[in-house]
């Protein structure tokens, strides 16, 4: 992307495409990952992210385009010679070997002397927090320990890029939360470039410096977690990252991105969108549940651009992630609103009248596709 300083990037893809027969799995992907960063590719299953990762590892040959590692094309480098290593989805730890033999496998392939291997394996074990576990069998260690062994097995080879194929998918919820933090810490310590693919947005948002949202073989948006969340570039990103209330409507007035939209339910909403949107265009309107403010009286939301009132339909209590569903407007449409845990709304019950509102800046409109 920036040809004048190619070496600043550990990994680059240029118009990378892979088609199987008449199906295009990966379509003209451009991407450049700076050295030492944590880069995630987030997308639903079947979006092509696994194919993209396997092309980087060398297991799938691209139909066209180029892959560069530290500025050098690796298209003709077989997988066993590429300076990238991979943490597989099911980890692929060799069951017939001990932990130390697993970590030493790559070093043995390089012909490193035996005593060096032993030393470097133990160092790697210390760095992933498993000192002295080298003699254990793979079947003897826990799920979280297996993750760390799989990572140590790669990092001991000091790769330019570490590829991770949804390695947390098999873990239970609590351990997954823990490993997110752990992975980020490990990446920070080793300073290695991580490319992480996942369908779990929270994994991607929490750990990554930058995230690419992938859909149907293309990148929809590449940016920081905040970019994706607050400034989604496409309707897909808005819908895929985080929760949203979504309406379809027609633009009534448009003024340099400030829009009023009449939804199909007959509600008039003030929102924002790209400047090219003109009156008469059909748009999808997205509002996040946590962007909506609740109030017992109309005065509490007087400053909001969008103000409505309705009745509580049900309260979905889930601690900090609690929600309230409100029925409002002539069509009695349901609106999903985050329930603030300030105590003010703890006694909210179905049937009670309620006022709510949100700003036009937090109302994102995209041309309906």
């Amino acid at each position, binding site marked *: 992307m920036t040809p004048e300083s190619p070496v600043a990037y550990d990994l680059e893809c240029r118009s990378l495409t892979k088609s199987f027969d008449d199906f295009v799995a990966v379509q003209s992907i451009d991407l450049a990952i700076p050295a030492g960063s944590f880069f995630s590719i987030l997308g639903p299953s079947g979006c092509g992210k696994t194919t993209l990762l396997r092309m980087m*590892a*060398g*297991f799938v040959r691209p139909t066209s385009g180029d892959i560069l590692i530290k500025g050098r094309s690796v298209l003709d480098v*077989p*997988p*066993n*010679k590429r300076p*990238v*290593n*991979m943490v*597989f*989805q*099911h980890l*692929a*730890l*060799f*069951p*017939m070997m001990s932990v130390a033999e697993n970590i030493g*496998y*790559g070093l043995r*392939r*390089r012909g490193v002397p035996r005593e060096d291997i032993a030393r470097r394996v133990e160092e790697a074990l210390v760095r992933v927090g498993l000192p002295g576990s080298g003699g254990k069998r793979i079947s003897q260690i826990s799920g979280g320990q297996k993750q760390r062994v799989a990572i140590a*097995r*790669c990092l001991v*080879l000091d790769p330019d890029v570490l590829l991770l194929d949804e390695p947390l998918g098999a873990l239970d919820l609590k351990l997954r939360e823990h490993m997110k933090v752990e992975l980020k810490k490990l990446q920070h310590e080793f300073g290695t470039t991580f490319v992480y693919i996942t369908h779990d947005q929270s994994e991607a948002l929490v750990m990554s410096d930058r995230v690419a949202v992938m859909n149907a073989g293309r990148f929809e948006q590449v940016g920081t977690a905040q970019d994706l969340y607050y400034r989604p570039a496409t309707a897909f990103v808005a819908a895929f990252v985080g929760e949203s209330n979504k309406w379809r409507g027609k633009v009534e007035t448009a003024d340099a991105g400030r829009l009023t939209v009449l939804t199909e339910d007959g509600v008039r909403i003030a929102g924002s969108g790209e400047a090219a949107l003109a009156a008469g265009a059909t748009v999808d309107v997205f509002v996040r549940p946590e962007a909506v403010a609740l109030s017992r009286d109309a005065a509490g939301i007087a400053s909001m651009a969008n103000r409505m009132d309705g009745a509580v339909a049900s309260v979905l209590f889930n601690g900090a992630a609690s929600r309230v569903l409100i029925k409002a407007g002539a069509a009695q449409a349901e609106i999903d609103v985050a329930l603030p845990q300030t105590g003010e709304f703890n006694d909210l019950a179905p049937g009670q009248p309620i006022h709510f509102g949100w700003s036009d800046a937090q109302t994102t409109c995209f041309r309906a596709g």
Partner: protein
Amino acid sequence: MIPSIPQNPFLRNAYRAYVGLFFIYLAAPLIVVSVFAFNDSLFPSLPWKGFTWDWFFGDTDPRIGLFHDRSLLNAIGVSVFVAFSVTILSVAVGTTNAFLFEREKFRFRNFAYVLMLTPLVVPGIILGISILIMTNGVANRAYDAFGVEVDLLRPGLPLVVLGQFSFIATITTLVISARLRKFDVELEEAALNLGATRWVAVRTITLPYLAPAMIGAGIVAFLMSFENFNTTLMLVGSDAPLTIALFDRLKEGSTPVLNAISLMLMIVSALLALGAISLQRGKSA
């Protein structure tokens, strides 16, 4: 009909008695063969004339025990040689076949697979005669054309090995394929990813994973070869493997030395079979 469903106690006991009788039926011939190996008599039949080790260690005519019977010992040697050759060949071909059928996609794959299974449903005696006819034909043509006699293609041990291999290879293929099917290809990719070449990945990861199945298949192949009769009968030359030698003795009239050797066979087979079964267990766990 299952433990959770109450059943008439009379029926239940009758059922148990039937199962008991069945196992007596299974064990009876093996038990009498073993017991009469120690009968102090020239014939393996009643009456019981007392206990003796003669049929194992005796060295004077007519009581030549198993360990002094040259022709029987020789036949055991022949059988071991044949079984060993068949085992090596069958496990090697079974392994390449397993990789071929589990890893490669090719035209006629299904056809080849069914063809690979057919030796199991061809009677052994027919496998024997068809191989006999073919090799004999080749040998005759060689003789007519070049005037050389190719002993290798006339009835004898090489043909016995080929004949047994022709169907035992199917069994080793099935056993090794079943294990390879359970292998996670991700492991091989991981090895490539860590710097191994394709061959090194197979040698260091896949073959160690297959080893229990290869050993198990080897034991099965060895036993099947050692016990084979039908195919061997049609292909045997002057060196008779044990089953053929025993058959000839049995037709002449039996002495308890046959019981003695049968008992030895049973013990060795049982040990090998238990070994194979425990390997099977170990790999499923």
